[in-house]
């Protein structure tokens, strides 16, 4: 009886600790957002983008705020303006405006707006996904698709980045000081690559030895855990449902 009560308590506590969305849930939002903007017909682009942006505002508002950065605003505005100025061959051309003395294509502006909406939605979807899940969760997910040992390799790769950067900088300076960039450039580029890789591979040899000493084996290593959320399944259902509704209704 006591055991039952304890397990019940554990289950309730675990359910409380469980986040709303896990890795699979965030993947569903990401995949369905890309699916929606890729598949939505031009007439339904606005509701599709609104749905994706609404989900982004709820789940990762910081990614939505990235769009307000001047460089992104400029890039998105450029998509609309360039189409408005030069795209006079778009569907429905002829209904054009004059902004002062500048002719603007109404249909071009619409096409540009749709392109900007798609670009913005894709940007927010990718940024939101990469910001919401950790690198180990993504690799854990990929391991489940057959890339066994990827988590181990990505972990090593992440830790090798500083030493690779250092090896690259040192080899580059050495080459530069010896005048290696002035003549026989291809040969020196080969030497540069070989030096950087040889240096890092020697370091990697130590990592491999350490892993083998700890009896690490990719076959026996547990798969990297991926977090599970309370609403992962409903998120998939809602995302796929939204795609079906937008496409067929």
């Amino acid at each position, binding site marked *: 009886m006591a055991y039952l009560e304890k397990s019940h308590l554990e289950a309730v506590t675990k359910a409380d600790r469980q986040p709303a969305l896990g890795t699979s849930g965030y993947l569903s939002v990401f995949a369905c957002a890309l699916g929606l903007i890729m598949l939505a017909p031009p007439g339904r682009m606005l509701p599709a983008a609104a749905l994706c942006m609404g989900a982004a505002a709820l789940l990762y508002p910081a990614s939505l705020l990235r769009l307000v950065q001047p460089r992104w605003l400029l890039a998105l505005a450029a998509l609309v303006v360039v189409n408005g100025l030069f795209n006079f061959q778009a569907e429905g051309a002829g209904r054009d405006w004059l902004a002062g003395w500048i002719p603007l294509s109404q249909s071009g502006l619409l096409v540009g707006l749709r392109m900007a909406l798609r670009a913005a939605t894709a940007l927010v979807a990718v940024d939101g996904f990469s910001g919401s899940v950790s690198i180990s969760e993504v690799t854990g997910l990929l391991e489940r698709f057959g890339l066994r040992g990827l988590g181990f390799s990505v972990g090593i790769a992440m830790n090798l980045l500083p030493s690779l950067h250092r090896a690259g900088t040192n080899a580059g300076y050495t080459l530069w000081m010896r005048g290696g960039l002035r003549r026989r450039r291809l040969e020196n580029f080969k030497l540069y*690559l070989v030096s950087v890789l040889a240096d890092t591979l020697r370091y990697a040899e130590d990592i491999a030895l350490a892993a083998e000493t700890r009896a690490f084996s990719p076959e026996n290593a547990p798969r990297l855990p991926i977090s599970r959320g309370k609403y992962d399944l409903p998120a998939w259902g809602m995302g796929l449902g939204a795609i079906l509704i937008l496409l067929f209704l």
Partner: protein
Amino acid sequence: MKFNTRQLVTLAVFGALWGLVEISLGSVLNALRVPFSGAVLTAIGLVVAMAGRMFVPKSGSTLFIGVIAMVLKLFSIGSVVVGPMVGILAAAVIAELALSGFRRPSRLAFITAGALGILWSLFQPFFTGLLLFGRDVMDIWQGVLREGERVFGLDTQAALLIVLVLALARLLIGAAAGWLAWDVGRRLLSRLNTGVQPAAHA
């Protein structure tokens, strides 16, 4: 796709280098709008990936290196990642398929894999532009023609010639990358004196 611990570590080194090239050099080249920047980046990445193939001559190793580079690019800060991620993965898949078509690693296999992997960068704007950003096919097509005009000074009316020249340029860059990868891989093997003999002689 099964690798032992040592192979996984080796693949991590090559994947990290491809990822580092994409994160550092990729951001600079894309910001400067250098012509053929995509092809050049993919070429450097493939040199690294194919050199890695000499160390782990098993099917799937090139793809594995590409996936590591793609994951590193996904988590890099403050840049556009969708296009490069698709580019890395596509190049790795094509190179992997091409290398798998040969019985064992050889210079010819590397040249073929490099050329085909980099040829993808000509078609990538159609894939990402059309599917992700909803660009018009004609718009992308005009972009390709403008690139030919800007780089080679060809008239935009000569569409077929431009496409052929652009494809040829990419094939040549790719073939050079394959040639270079074979040399780098062999030199690396002999320098490290790992006891692993090069899979085939040039």
